[in-house]
């Protein structure tokens, strides 16, 4: 076989590829998995936004922040009072 023939045969062989029969099914399954995951994340994000944007949510978050601050201040006083 000449160099030209070898070269052409090799190029043809490179262009011939076997695609697994179920490849499209697997891609579609992966796409649906990702859509479901995105939907769950979207729901969580929506819930978080709803909490953050509602009056009750804001009051709750501020109360927690104040409670945490008070707790930290008490811990600080405790350092001096315990001596």
């Amino acid at each position: 076989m000449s160099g030209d023939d070898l070269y052409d045969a090799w190029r043809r062989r490179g262009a011939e590829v076997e695609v697994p029969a179920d490849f499209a099914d697997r891609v579609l399954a992966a796409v649906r998995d990702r859509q479901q995951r995105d939907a769950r994340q979207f729901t969580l994000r929506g819930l978080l936004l709803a909490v953050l944007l509602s009056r009750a949510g804001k009051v709750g978050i501020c109360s927690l922040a104040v409670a945490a601050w008070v707790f930290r201040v008490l811990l600080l006083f405790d350092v001096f009072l315990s001596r």
Partner: protein
Amino acid sequence: VNEDLEVIRRILAGDTDAFRLLVVRYQRPLFCLIRNLVPGPDAEDIAQDVFLAAFANLAGFDQARAGFSTWLFTIARNRCLAALKKRRPVLCARLPERADSRTPEAEASEEEWFRRLDAALEQLPFGQRTAFVLAQMQGLALDEIARIEGVSVGTVKSRLGRARDKLRALLPRPVERS
């Protein structure tokens, strides 16, 4: 092209199953590109990753800039490059030496020649390899390859010429330029 756009319109309207049409239509050329750019067991994962990325970014596809196949090949090209960067470099990588028709190498089997050409293709710089696979194995037009690679048509021609010269040099006698 119009069929692609119609399918894309359906997908964006919420018909996820329509994406199967695009997968079936482009899986073979995509596998060809990926298998030749990233030989080994990763090809199938990369192909799946490319289709997932295409689906996720379909809303950003701009038909005015390029056709769907060009856009898809660009994603594939970038994923292949990223996969190759993750791989450990091969030590002592070099092109096989030119065959001498007066030696027993000349009697190498067809399969042996193919192995040598495969190895030589793998050693080519990424730009040359991509240009060669897209042009010589998939028959894409030079301007389409230029859009995929993000370079000028002249650069593609030059890369293609250099790739062909290097591969041709391995064969028992020169191959005419096509």
